[in-house]
Structures are given as structure tokens and as C-alpha cells.
């Protein structure tokens, strides 16, 4: 079975999905990410879906589940790069990706993660 590589940059994990996802591959990514977040003590996960030509309810659920798992493990997930046609279709399909943070592209996603991280460490300093 195909596996999606997970790159690490500091305390951020970076995933770029570049294949037409089979359901099993999507489920394996969920497990792999949970393990990597824990091992790397990651605080951020960036998922780039700019190469995905569709997001159906299965992939939508995977993105929501990953965000949920990451949150419980103390990491924030940002999904970036969704194509406009995919966004239009997703909303019409009835999926709103509740609880999933999104950003237009990788650059803005990284900015968002850094901003959130700084906010958190600021809170920690104050308490």
C-alpha cells in the first residue's frame, strides 16, 4: 500500500498529498500522523492539498479526524491549498469541514501556525 510521506520542520509536520488517495492510504496517514506528532512533540501540522483534484466525504472526514486527533495531542492542523473548484464542490456536497483550520496556501498556513504558537507561549509566560 502507498504511504504519504511526512516531513518535519522544527515542531511542524508537513504533509503534501500528491496522489489520488485510496481510502486505505488516507486511513494510514491518520495513524502515521498521530504517531509522528507524539514522537516529534509537534505543535503544528500543515496539510497541503493543492494537488488534490477532489475532496469527497471520505477525505473530508479524514481531514476532520486528523485535526481532532492532533488537537487532543496538543497540535494545531492547518489544511492549505484547496483548489477553488474543490471548495465549491465540497460546500455543495454539504461538508463544511467544521473544526478544520484552513489557509489559502503553504506560506499563509505557516504564518498562521507560527502566530498561534507565539500566542500560546505568550499565554504560558503570563501564567
Amino acid at each position: 500500500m502507498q504511504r504519504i510521506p511526512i516531513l518535519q520542520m522544527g515542531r511542524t509536520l508537513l504533509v503534501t498529498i500528491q496522489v489520488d488517495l485510496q481510502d486505505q492510504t488516507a486511513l494510514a496517514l491518520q495513524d502515521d500522523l498521530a504517531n509522528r506528532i507524539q514522537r516529534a512533540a509537534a505543535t503544528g501540522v500543515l496539510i497541503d492539498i493543492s494537488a488534490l483534484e477532489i475532496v469527497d466525504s471520505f477525505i473530508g472526514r479524514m481531514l476532520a479526524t486528523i485535526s481532532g486527533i492532533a488537537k487532543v495531542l496538543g497540535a494545531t492542523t492547518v489544511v492549505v491549498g484547496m483548489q477553488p473548484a474543490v471548495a465549491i464542490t465540497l460546500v455543495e456536497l454539504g461538508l463544511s469541514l467544521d473544526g478544520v483550520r484552513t489557509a489559502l496556501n503553504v506560506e499563509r498556513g505557516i504564518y498562521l501556525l507560527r502566530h498561534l504558537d507565539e500566542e500560546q507561549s505568550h499565554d504560558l509566560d503570563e501564567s
Partner: protein
Amino acid sequence: MTLTSPDTTTGEMAIRNEADIVLARQQVRRLTQTLKFSLVDQTKMITAASELSRNTLIYGGGGEMVWQLVQQGIRQGLRLSFVDRGPGIPDIDLAMKDGWTSGGGLGMGLSGSKRLVNDFELDTAPGKGTRVTITRWK
């Protein structure tokens, strides 16, 4: 399966495993591109095919996707049927509800796909299998 000649207007492919869902998406992409659908219309039809072929596999125990290039006056379109000989759907109204699922899904497959296409037909009865036919016009 590929379009072998321009006058090939119909065909079918088996949906027996997860890899077939990916193949069904790719086939629908080729067909919508042949018809010169806009990118948004391509994406909607492929997404609907992805949802319905997964239903065929998971709830119907496998089956076929039948495709047909259709013409009505000057309108051209793509019609897809997802056919299985599974248990059928006992309560159609319930199955068409957003968020209702008998499996482990989100319950968006049937109701969501209907919103992505122009025509949607559901033909099912307990013990008689299920046939979902969708059409999207260019």
C-alpha cells in the same frame, strides 16, 4: 478502461475494491474532459462518482459503474449508473437525509451527490439491489 474511439458512447467497469473507486474517478475525469465540461462541473461529477462508487462497494458489496454519453437536442451530458445486487435500501427517505448513515460514513453520499448533478434517480428495493443513475449536462 479508456475511450477507444470517439463514437464509443457507453461502457462499464467493475467496482469490486477500493482501487476501483480511484479508477472510476479517473474514468469520469476522462469522460467529462472529452465532453469539455468546465473544471467545476468536472469536479462535481467526479466527486459524485466517488461517493456513489464507494456506496456500491460498501453497502452493495460491489457492482458496476455504467457510463453513457447522452445527447438531448443540442445538450450533451454524461450519465452514470451505479448498480449493485446488494441488500437494497429499505427506507429511501431516510437514506436520502443529510447525515444519516447505516454504515460508518458521514451520511453525505446520496444526499450530497444529488446536489452535485442535474438529474438523480434511485431505484432500489429490499433484497433487489440498488441502482443510482445521475446525469450532468454540459
